[in-house]
């Protein structure tokens, strides 16, 4: 199974719907697809292999990811971190400003930044085709190896409390 998620932000991501249509029609995808389309209208897209839902709960998403051979996701930071943590095989499609898919190009910049750590992304359909034909290897390490901000805040505000 392939999980194809656009996130649940309210901007439409019609390009990703068109890509999915192409992938199914050209029989590049030949296994079931669970499609979380969020706010994007996906009524016109129908295919025997396709199951479309507006949104999954976090638990449903986790279950689906565990069962999937590949996850194709918008480059949201929450989704990316979840997929990396779960050791999923995944590829990102950044939402782009020029098509009205987000307010700016931060998803593209984020995708470029995490590419350094081994996360693949694509901005063209033909790149995605290659990742479907040859799925990327899941990350073997933590996506970010950095100190914890939560720990910093815990220590910092414990001190603030003590000083009162």
């Amino acid at each position, binding site marked *: 199974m392939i999980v194809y998620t656009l*996130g*649940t*932000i*309210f901007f439409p991501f019609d390009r990703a719907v068109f890509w999915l249509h192409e992938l199914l029609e050209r029989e590049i995808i030949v296994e079931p697809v669970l499609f979380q389309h*969020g706010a994007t209208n996906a009524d016109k897209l129908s295919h025997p292999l396709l199951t479309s839902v*507006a*949104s999954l*709960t*976090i638990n449903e998403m986790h279950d689906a990811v565990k069962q999937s051979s590949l996850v194709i996701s918008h*480059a*949201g*930071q*929450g*989704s990316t*971190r*979840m997929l990396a943590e779960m050791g999923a095989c995944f590829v990102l499609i950044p939402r782009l400003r020029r098509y009205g898919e987000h*307010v*700016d190009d*931060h*998803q593209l*910049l*984020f995708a*470029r*930044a995490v590419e350094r750590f081994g996360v693949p992304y694509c901005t063209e359909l033909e790149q995605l085709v290659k990742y479907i034909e040859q799925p990327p290897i899941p990350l073997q390490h933590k996506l*970010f190896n*950095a*100190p*914890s*901000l*939560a*720990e*910093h*805040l*815990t220590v910092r*505000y414990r001190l*603030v*409390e003590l000083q009162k």
Partner: protein
Amino acid sequence: MKLLLVCNPGGHFSTMLGLKSFWSAYQREWVTYSHYDTRKLGEKETVHWVTMQEARMLGRASINFVKALMILSQSKPDLLISTGASLAVPFILASKFFGIKTVFIESISRTSSLSMTGRIVYNLVDEFYVQWPECVEIYPRAQYKGIVT
């Protein structure tokens, strides 16, 4: 110490959840709007549901500014923390009127420049955290103390 946790749904909400080891030690209330992911929050936490407000929605920001004044006067937090996005603006602005300390945490997706929300609140907040060390070089008021895992 009492906290007010302010965040939009989606990645901003998941970032706030990633700070649970910090905020769970304190009395707290939340501010967000109802969405697929935040809807269940009210079952376990005290939540002030506000008007849906996303980027560049000035009219809604004004509505939420009035709501922010009401919520802050009622909730009386000692510290307001926001992981973004746009909901941070009316709430951080309103906090200034009550002298409430504010902390803003920029999204990890902002690798080299701040979000519009980040730029608006940059000079208003008491503490501004970024999640990429290189951002500190461009924004000296920002601190890098690690990431939200």
